[in-house]
C-alpha cells in the first residue's frame, strides 16, 4: 500500500528509528535495512499489540495487592517502551496520550483504569481518527478526567447546567484548536489582522448540551447513555443544526462527524503529531502534506492514522532534515530541524542502547515523575507536559521557533535527569534481590575496552547507530589511552559510557544526511 522509499545511509536508518521507536538498537537497524522501510513499517502495524492492563493486573495478583499502584502502571509502561516488539505502535500511543491527555493528577489511584485507557489508544493507533475520538469521548477515564461522566441536562430546580469541560477541551485540544488555520497550519487573520477563533463560547454551551446523559463504564467498557438525562432539544453547534429529539448516541454520532470534518482538524492534528515524532518546527509545506494525507489516505478515507504516521515519518522534509526557517534565512532550515528529546525518551533511548532488562519485575525504577518531571499519563493538566508552541528564552525564541520539551529542562530537572543517567550506568551491579531494578550486561563492554579502537566503534554502534560525533570519539579515546589505566576495566567502561550518555547530541534528535 505504500510507495517504497529507502534511505541513503545507515545513519539515516538510525535516525528514522529514533523517531519511530523508543530507541534505535543495533539489531533494529539491521532488521530495517534487511526488510526495507515500507515492509518494516507494514510489519510493525501487524505485530501483536503489547497491552498494558494484563501486565498491571498480573502484578497486582503476584504481589497480593488490593489495587494497582503508579509504580506498577508506569513500570509496565517502561517495560513495553524498552522491550516491546510493537515499537511503532507503542510510540504512536504515547504520542496520542500527549494529545488526548488523561492524568493521575486528577484521577488518583485508578491505575488499572488508566492502563485500560492506554490500551484503547494502542488499539486505535493505526486506525481511524473518528473511531479514536469516539472511544476517547466515551472512555470512563476521560469521562472522569474531563467530567463528562454524569453530565446532565439543565435542571431548573437546582438551577444547574450541563458540564462544559469536555465540550470545551474536545474542540480546543483534541480537534480544532483555538484559531482558524489555513491548510498550511497558519492562523487566518481578519481585516484587522486579528486571529479568528475557531469556536465560540456559545458553541461550547451547545456542544455541552449535546453531550449530556453519559454515565458508568469501567476499564474497557465505555460509558453508556441514559437518555433521561440527555438534553433532547435542538442545538446549533459550529453553525450546524442538531435536530430535536435525538438520543445521546445520535447526538454523539453527529458531534464526532462534525468535529472530524471541520477544516481545522487535519492540520491541527498533523502539526501536533509531527512535533511528537520529527521536529518542533515543521515547515508549513510539511504540515500541509501530512494534513492532506489525513484528509484523504489515497482511497478517499479521512483520518487514517496509519497513513498519517507514514506521511509524517517519510516526508521529504523529515528525510532531508529540513525545518522551518522561523525569522531567519532559509539557509538556517537544516539547523532548525529536529527536537529536544523529552526526558522520558532520553531514558528509554539509554535503556535500549544498553539492552536493559529487569531483575524480576519492571517497576518505575527511576521515579519518573520526580526525576524526569514527567511520567506517562501524569501531566499536570489536560494541557500536557508542555505546550506545543512553547518558545524558551534565548536563540530559539529570538528566531521565532518553538521547543516544547524545553519546559522540562529546569536547573533542578537537569540535575535529577543526569543522576538517573548515572544510576542506569551503575545498574549493571543489580543483584537478584534488587528485584525491581533495571539492569544490563556490562561484559560486552568489558570484553573490548583494552582495544580502544574496537571499543569505541562498538559504543558508537550501540548508542549512536554509527553516528557518534568525532568530538565524543576523541574524548573516549583520550580517557582510554591516557586517563584510566587498562587494569581498571569497569572504571574505563563506566566513564566512557558517561561521556557518551551526557553528550549534548544524545539529548537532541537531529537530521542525518
Amino acid at each position, binding site marked *: 500500500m505504500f510507495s517504497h522509499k529507502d534511505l541513503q545511509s545507515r545513519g539515516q536508518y538510525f535516525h528514522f528509528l529514533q523517531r519511530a521507536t523508543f530507541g534505535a538498537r543495533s539489531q533494529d537497524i539491521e532488521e530495517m535495512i534487511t526488510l526495507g522501510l515500507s515492509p518494516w513499517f507494514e510489519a510493525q502495524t501487524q505485530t501483536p499489540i503489547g497491552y498494558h492492563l494484563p501486565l498491571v493486573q498480573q502484578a497486582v495478583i503476584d504481589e497480593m495487592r488490593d489495587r494497582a499502584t503508579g509504580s506498577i502502571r508506569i513500570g509496565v509502561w517502561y517495560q513495553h517502551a524498552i522491550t516491546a516488539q510493537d515499537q511503532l505502535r507503542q510510540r504512536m500511543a504515547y504520542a496520542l496520550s500527549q494529545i488526548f491527555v488523561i492524568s493521575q493528577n486528577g484521577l488518583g489511584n485508578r491505575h488499572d483504569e488508566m492502563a485500560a485507557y492506554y490500551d484503547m489508544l494502542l488499539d486505535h493507533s493505526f486506525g481511524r481518527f473518528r473511531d479514536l475520538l469516539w472511544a476517547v469521548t466515551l472512555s470512563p477515564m476521560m469521562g472522569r478526567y474531563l467530567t463528562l461522566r454524569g453530565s446532565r441536562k439543565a435542571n431548573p430546580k437546582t438551577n444547574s447546567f450541563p458540564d462544559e469541560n469536555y465540550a470545551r477541551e474536545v474542540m480546543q485540544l483534541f480537534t480544532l484548536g483555538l484559531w482558524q488555520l489555513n491548510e498550511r497550519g497558519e492562523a487566518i487573520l481578519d481585516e484587522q489582522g486579528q486571529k479568528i477563533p475557531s469556536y465560540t463560547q456559545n458553541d461550547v454551551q451547545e456542544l455541552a448540551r449535546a453531550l449530556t446523559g453519559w454515565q458508568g463504564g469501567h476499564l474497557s467498557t465505555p460509558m453508556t447513555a441514559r437518555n433521561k438525562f440527555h438534553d433532547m432539544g435542538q442545538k446549533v453547534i459550529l453553525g450546524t443544526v442538531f435536530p430535536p429529539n435525538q438520543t445521546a448516541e445520535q447526538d454523539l454520532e453527529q458531534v464526532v462527524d462534525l468535529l472530524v470534518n471541520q477544516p481545522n482538524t487535519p492540520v491541527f492534528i498533523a502539526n501536533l503529531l509531527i512535533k511528537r515524532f520529527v521536529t518542533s518546527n515543521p515547515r508549513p509545506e510539511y504540515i500541509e502534506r501530512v494534513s492532506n494525507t489525513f484528509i484523504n489516505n489515497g482511497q478517499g478515507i479521512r483520518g487514517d492514522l496509519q497513513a498519517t504516521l507514514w506521511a509524517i515519518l517519510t516526508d521529504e522534509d523529515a528525510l532531508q532534515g529540513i525545518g522551518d526557517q522561523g525569522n531567519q534565512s532559509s539557509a538556517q532550515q537544516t*539547523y532548525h530541524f529536529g527536537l529536544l528529546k523529552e526526558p522520558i525518551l532520553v531514558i528509554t533511548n539509554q535503556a535500549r542502547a544498553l539492552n536493559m532488562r529487569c531483575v524480576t519485575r519492571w517497576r518505575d525504577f527511576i521515579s519518573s515523575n520526580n526525576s524526569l518531571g514527567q511520567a506517562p499519563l501524569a501531566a499536570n493538566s489536560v494541557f500536557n507536559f508542555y505546550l506545543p508552541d512553547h518558545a524558551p528564552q534565548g536563540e530559539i525564541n529570538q528566531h521565532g521557533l518553538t521547543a516544547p520539551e*524545553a519546559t522540562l529542562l529546569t536547573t533542578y530537572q*537537569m540535575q535529577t535527569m543526569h543522576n538517573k543517567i548515572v544510576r542506569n550506568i551503575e545498574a549493571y551491579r543489580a543483584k537478584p534481590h534488587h528485584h525491581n531494578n533495571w539492569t544490563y550486561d556490562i561484559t560486552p563492554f568489558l570484553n573490548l575496552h583494552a582495544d580502544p579502537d574496537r571499543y569505541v566503534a562498538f559504543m558508537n554502534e550501540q548508542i549512536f547507530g554509527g553516528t557518534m560525533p568525532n568530538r565524543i570519539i576523541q574524548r573516549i579515546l583520550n580517557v582510554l589511552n591516557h586517563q584510566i589505566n587498562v587494569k581498571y576495566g569497569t572504571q574505563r567502561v563506566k*566513564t566512557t559510557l558517561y561521556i557518551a550518555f551526557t553528550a549534548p547530541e544524545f539529548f*537532541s534528535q537531529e537530521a542525518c544526511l
Partner: protein
Amino acid sequence: MKLSRRRFLQSSMALSAASMTTLPHTAFAQQSRTATSDYKALVIVFLKGGNDAYNMIVPTSPREYETYQATRPNLALTPTEIHPISLTTENQVNLGIHHAMSDLVPLFESGDASVFVNSGQLLTPTTRSTIAASLSPLPRFLMAHNMQQDMWQTGATYYNSPQGWAGRMMAMLSEKTEISPLISLNSQTRLNISDQLPQTVLNSNGIGQYSGWHDPIYVDEYFSHFDGDFDNIYTQYFTDTMKKSVIENAELKTILESHPSTAVYPETNLAAQLKMVSRMIQARQALYHQQQVFFVSIGGFDTHVNQKPTHHALLENIAQAFTAFNSDLTQQGMNKNVITLTMSDFGRRVLSNESGTDHGWGGHQLVMGGAIKGLQAYGEWPDLTPNSEDDYNHGRIIPGIAADQINASIARWFGLSDNQVLELFPNLSNFPSPYIDFINRDENEQLPHWHATTVYQNNDLVTHNGQTWQAAWWTQGNEPDKHEVWKLVTTEENNLIAIWSASRIYREHDIVTHKNIQWKAAWYTKGEEPGTTGEWGVWRKKG
C-alpha cells in the same frame, strides 16, 4: 566564556566564602546591603484551574446572601459555613469567608490581608449593556484555561507576547545578577519571562548534587561538553542549558545552605514552595536582589464535579500555607516588604453543574502583606441575579476591577512611573484610574513633621498640627501657623495645592502649580512632570 572545571570550582568557592568582592555588581551589592527598607517582593500564588471564588468569599449582608443562595442552591454555603471577616465592599456589602479558611480571619482583622472583589480580565470598563451595544471589546478566549492563565501573567493586551508583565517590569528596574530575581517554583512561567533577564526555576525540594562528581574525570568530561559549538539549534540549546544548570545549581546550593528555613510550615506542596520563597527572601543580599518576583502555584481548582469536598480541602491548604508564610515573614521583619497575591484562570460560573461549577469570568483574589491598606475590601459586590448588568451569560460575572489594575498598582509600588505602567498595560488608559489604591505609601516618603532647628528651602513641605505647609523662602525656627513664610497648602478635601516637586508623591485629586499652570492628579504619582503626561496621563489641567 569558556568555563573550565577549575573556574567552576573557584566560582562556587567564591560564593561560599565571604569574599563576595570577587564577583561583579559590587557597587550594587553594597547599596543593597544598606537598603532593606527599599527591598520589595511580589509573591504570586496561582490557583490553577479556575478558583470558585464565589464560594471562597461570600456576602453576609442579607439581601446579597439571599441572591447568592438562590443562584446556586446546591452549592451555596450555609450561614454556619461562613466566617465573617469584617470587611465591607465599596458598595457596602459585608463579607465572610469559607470556613475552611478561618485561619485567615485574624489577618483580615489586623489589616494584613484583604480581598479584591470581582476582578478579572478586562480591556475596558464593561457591563452587560456595553457588551450588547458592542461598545466593549472583550479579552480573547475568555473561559479557556491556558489563554486566561497567560493573560493574568502578560496583561490583557499582550496575551500573545512571550514575555510576562513582571519580566518586563524587572527589565525596566533591575540590573543583571548571577541569579535572576525572576523566580518561579517548579517550572518556567510566563509571568517571569523577560527578554533581558533569565528566569530562575527552583524546586521546592531544594537543590541536589550531581552524582558521580566525586570523580574529577566525570566533572572534566561533563564540562568538556560545554565547549561544543553546535549548528543544530536544539543541541546548542541543550548545551547552554547544561552549563547554566551546573552553575546555577552550585550557586543556589551555596546560598540556600547558608539560609535555612527556621519557621514551621504545614506539610503541603504549596507550603513547601512558600518556604523556599522565604529562604530566597532571606538570601536577598547574598543574591544582590533589590526586588524579587516569585511565582508559586497550586492545582486542582477546575472543580466541574464533586466540588464541595475538593474545594474545601484546597481552601484550607491555602489558608494554612498563607498563615505560616505571613508569620515567617513577620518574624523576619519582612512583612512590609512583601506582597502576596492570588491569581486564578478565571472565577467560576455562579450557576452550578450537577455537583460542581463551570468556567466563568470575574472572581475574587486575596492579597496579604504589611504594606497593604487592609480593613476594607476593594471593588463592588456584583449583582448575581441572572441577566443583571453584571451577568455576561449563565452566571459568568463581568469583572468590576481589571486584573491589570491590581498588577499596575504593584508595578508602581515596585517603582515604575505611570508611563512605564501604561507601557505594560495600555488597556488601563481606558479606565478612570490605572490603579487600585491598596498599598500604603512608603514610610520614608511621608512628609516630615516641622522641626524648629531644621533648615527649610524654598518649596519644602512639612506637616504641622495635622496640616500641610510649604515654605515660600529659606527659613529656620519659624513655626508654620505663626509665620508668613509658611503657606497652608491643604484644600478643603484635605488635598494639596503646592508647587510641583519631582521628589514628592501626589495622591488622586492633589493640585499643584507648575510653570504657572494648575494641575490636578488623576491618581497617585511621583516624579512625572505636569504637562508631559499627555491628555490621558496622570496630570490633568485644572479648569
